[in-house]
């Protein structure tokens, strides 16, 4: 169960690294100086490739390969865009990086920008992250003043600058093409692919989009070499990954683990302090809310891309939401369905209409008006919504609900047949006053 703080370097350094000086004291910007001074862009790209780093936003696409999709001979300017929208429920790993270690992200972006030949980068940060945006703005300004951004960075003749752009609070703007639309000042809705952003992205120019955690992993990779990174974890899941644990655990928070070395049980019960006294484990959405739910029998699954996939879910964003037996899986599913109905952008028919319908059916169940034929209807809906849309939002809406009905069918059947959505959601006040568990 080795823990590592390569992305979360501020933890190893035991202090926040929000200023250029503190960051430098912890070895910051050395990778930048080394790469821009000694390496060609292609060599740097190869380092990314060789490290095996996979995109940490959710899809897990190899970062180096994605970067190599940008056409080398493009006439248009290239762009680097950092996805800091972090809107996946239960996910707050990027927030800590931006709050406590913003320069590592900036350094990572300069490295990625240099590797792909971009001179302009954007950080698209979710609107709710106002405090983090202030920190990033200050850090970008400080980096610029210290010569790590702007023209002729660290005397290397390399130009690269960053602009922070705040979103306005839409889940869909975390989807890469929806993000680009929003960044261009338009309504945030996904685009038809192909063309992929690598070919036709921001302002129809070749664009590399990466998550905060992905980009922040680049400086240690360059510093320690790609083999160091690839040596950790499993063959298909190299390196470290930050998991954000929330829900019914006693020590919620971010935990950076080496992939494949830690099981879900260890993450929940050892690192995150386990459940509250007297409670037993019920369910867990391990990769944010858009992935199939896991039950008790999955607790010994190692945390890496392939093992989680074998267990029927996805590593996703690493936003691990834990629910103990005080929660109701039907209500939880309804809550998730409401979220996706609310966040559906409305572009594709199946998502726009289907997410609302799923919510309606679950609401009926919770209201005691469920019917046994609703199970058949829901199955049909899953098929009619899943895999039919432009982007993955609808798939993400289907996954937690379809898996919940499959894994916890008894709970659903009980709610439908007994007409009672038990138990009610718990509030801490009620529990402390010994209040009702059922109502």
């Amino acid at each position: 169960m080795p823990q590592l703080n390569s992305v979360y370097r501020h933890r190893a350094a035991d202090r926040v690294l929000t200023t250029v000086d503190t960051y430098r004291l912890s070895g910051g910007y050395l990778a930048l100086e080394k790469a821009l001074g000694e390496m060609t862009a292609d060599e740097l790209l190869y380092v990314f490739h060789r490290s095996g780093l996979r995109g940490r936003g959710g899809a897990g696409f190899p970062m180096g390969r994605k970067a190599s999709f940008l056409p080398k001979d493009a006439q248009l300017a290239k762009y680097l865009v950092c996805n800091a929208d972090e809107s996946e429920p239960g996910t707050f790993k990027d927030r800590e990086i931006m709050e406590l270690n913003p320069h590592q992200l900036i350094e990572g972006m300069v490295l990625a920008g240099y590797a792909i030949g971009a001179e302009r980068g954007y950080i698209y940060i979710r609107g709710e992250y106002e405090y983090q945006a202030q920190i990033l703005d200050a850090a970008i300004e400080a980096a610029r003043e210290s010569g790590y951004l702007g023209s002729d960075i660290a005397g290397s003749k390399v130009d690269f600058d960053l602009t922070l752009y705040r979103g306005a609070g839409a889940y869909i703007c975390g989807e890469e093409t929806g993000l680009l639309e929003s960044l261009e000042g338009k309504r945030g809705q996904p685009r038809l692919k192909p063309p992929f952003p690598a070919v036709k992205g921001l302002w129809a120019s070749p664009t590399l989009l990466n998550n905060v955690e992905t980009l922040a992993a680049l400086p240690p990779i360059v510093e320690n070499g790609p083999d160091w990174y690839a040596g950790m974890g499993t063959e298909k899941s190299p390196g470290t990954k930050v998991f954000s644990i929330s829900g019914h655990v006693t020590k919620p928070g971010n935990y950076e683990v080496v992939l494949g070395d830690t099981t879900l049980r260890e993450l929940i019960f050892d690192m995150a302090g386990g459940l509250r006294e007297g409670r037993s484990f019920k369910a867990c959405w391990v990769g944010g809310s858009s992935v199939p739910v896991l039950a008790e029998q999955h607790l010994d699954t190692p945390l890496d891309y392939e093992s989680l996939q074998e267990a029927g879910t996805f590593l996703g964003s690493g936003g691990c939401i834990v629910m103990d037996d005080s929660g109701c899986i039907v209500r939880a599913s309804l809550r998730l369905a409401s979220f996706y109905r609310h966040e559906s952008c409305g572009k594709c028919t199946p998502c726009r209409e289907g997410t609302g319908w799923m919510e309606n059916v679950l609401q009926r169940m919770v209201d005691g008006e469920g019917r046994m034929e609703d199970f058949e209807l829901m199955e049909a809906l899953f098929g009619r919504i899943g895999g039919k849309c432009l982007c993955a939002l609808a798939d993400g809406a289907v996954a937690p609900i379809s898996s919940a009905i499959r894994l916890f069918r008894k709970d659903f059947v009980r709610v439908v047949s007994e007409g009672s959505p038990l138990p009610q959601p718990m509030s801490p006040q009620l529990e402390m006053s010994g209040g009702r568990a059922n109502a």
Partner: protein
Amino acid sequence: MPDYAPVDLTGTDLVEFELNGRTVKAPAGTMLVDACAANGVEVPIFCYEPRLGDPLGACRQCLVSVEGIPGLTTACSTPVAAEMMVDTVSEEVREAQDGILELLLENHPLDCPVCDKGGECPLQDRTFRFGPGESRMVEPKRHFPKPLKLSPQIALDRERCISCYRCVRFSQDVSEDGNLTMSERGGRSEITTFTGDSYNGRFTGNVIDLCPVGALTSIPYRFTSRPWDIQNTPSVCASCSVGCNTELTLREGEIKRVQGRDEPNWQVEEGWLCNVGRWGYGADQAPQRLRQPILRDGGETRECSLEEAVAAAGLVLAHEAHTTVLLGGDVTVEEAFIAKELAAGPLPDAQVGSAGVVGAALGPLRALPAAQLGDIDGADLVVVVGGDPANQHPVAELRLRKARRAGARIVLVGPRAQELESLGESIRTAPGNLAEGLTSAVAQIATVKRPLVVWDELDLDAEPDAAVVLATALGDNAAASQLELTSEVNGAGLRALGVAPHSRLVDQDLGGVLAVRANPGAGPGGDAWNRALDSGGPIVVIASHHSELTERATVVIPCSSHFEHEGVLVTAGQRAQRLRPGAAGPEQSAPGWEILIALSHRLGVALEYRSPRSAFAAATASAPALSGLDYDTLGDLGAEIATSPASDVNGAGAPRAHDGEGLPLVTGRSVFGGPEAHLSEGLVVTATGEEAVLHPAEAARLNVADANLITLNSPNGECTVRLRLDPGAPEGAVFAVRGVPGGTVESLLAPDRAPVNVTVNTA
């Protein structure tokens, strides 16, 4: 609406692919939906609309299975490739298409019995063919208050909307006004305007045709008809010389609707119409419509029968020593031809003239290869010389925008500020300096592969030297072509028949007058015309609407409007196109050609044409430019007439001199302020008026203020009009909008539209 893009299966670039087990062909790169349609397989669609630009892929209705692509893929966005294996009928595809329709109908109100779209609704049709028979949703549907007035002409029913984005894309990507947008998100998405105002514009009505459900309906049309008790007729719009192809909807003897055709004319309007073309039919039902023949005998005015009126017309004209036939700019080829025959035969000592300008120096330009509006698409450089296409020839604007989006360079040169200046390089010239202003454009014409010049007849007639410069530049590039935007709807047709403009007749003794759709008193030199008409003999007017001329006429014979008769108009691009009657017209009216034939009988020399078809056949035999054409060759889409031979351009070395004192006057008209716009009930709220426009600096020098009434005086007449100051207007000139019914700007002009100067004073 054309659901699928036209596919040419006769070309050489075809690839073979497998479609439902059959080997078929289509050009490589054709989108699968179109390739399937061309091979007789319908893939249902909603958001796909080839004219709106790149596919959107939003409705997901066209999911099909393509071997090698995991899952299903949208046929609207997948280009066909050699050896592709496509399945549009498998169980998986059927289930997906059924699924999308079930979801589309989930919240759709299914109020088809009271929906205007019912019976001609793609959502209905495709549900019938591809969708489920019943709904499984037991919850209440989503509701919105309805309908909303999206504009004075367009009703929005948000419950029926299936969020296909067609209307939004039209606004954003075709008319580029950018005002329609989707607000809210997910299931609460609704169409609205970005500004929150009414959705006003020149082309807004097209969103009604584009809407695949009953969400956007025409306020003038709604609740007037059902699709099973109407009759649709293909025709041509006569609101301007663009000649958009239309479909007329007839019910209870009246035109109830005009819309773009299902099979549009890709060389002309591509299915788009401007709002006047769409709703101008209301003018036919306006109170100003002539519904009863009128006789004036001494001081007495009385209504009479059609027969009596024709008899009286024959009587009064036969007794004149000499006569004048005045033709409007929109008479059909047949009407003009028969009128000419009348003048050559039974009418005593007659001369014929039509509205329009002489255009002495325009011959060489007209003799160059004529482009169609559709050719603007393929040009790499489009030079717009003079005019204001957005207001005078509206649908041309959409072509120019499309060309610009495709990467063509647009250069606009002309004497006035105009709507499309932001489309490209704009060179504004002082009156008289057009030739000089063309220098840069001329240089560019020489260096590009496919230059095309769109030119305005009136502005080049005023500056013949510029026409010569242009003709020379275009003549030097073998790939160059020209597109004339004529001022008169059938200007090219009248020219082909050899009818000269009537301005030469104004100073003569007119004798008895036969006016066919003509109203020279409201045109240039109106005062002079009215003097001439008042001092001449009896006037016989054949017209569809009341006018100043019908007020002074001895005999008024109501005739068909262009919605009510058969005939040919030669529109932009020298394209002969057929009008077809969509309605019968008022009981006491008759088609213009028929009245003229009846008149010939009364005059004693009966002309033998029994139909417009036979009159057109005789016209083509007499006019070389029309030879070889007949109604069958014109068909639904029309055909180009022969290019006229270049005429002599001696004396075209300089712009025509301006007459009078003061500032040069530049005029233009707007279809959106013309008679149809003002007479049609549906359009009158958005109709524009007369105005004069000055640069603020010029206004300061002249001591006149914004929004004040000013008086303009020229040697031809006087007019009082409201002033608008516009920093975009050129200094050293006055711009005025003419052509507004009841307006007086035209009276400032000379009958032959010779350039004038005007003095400006506060009224």
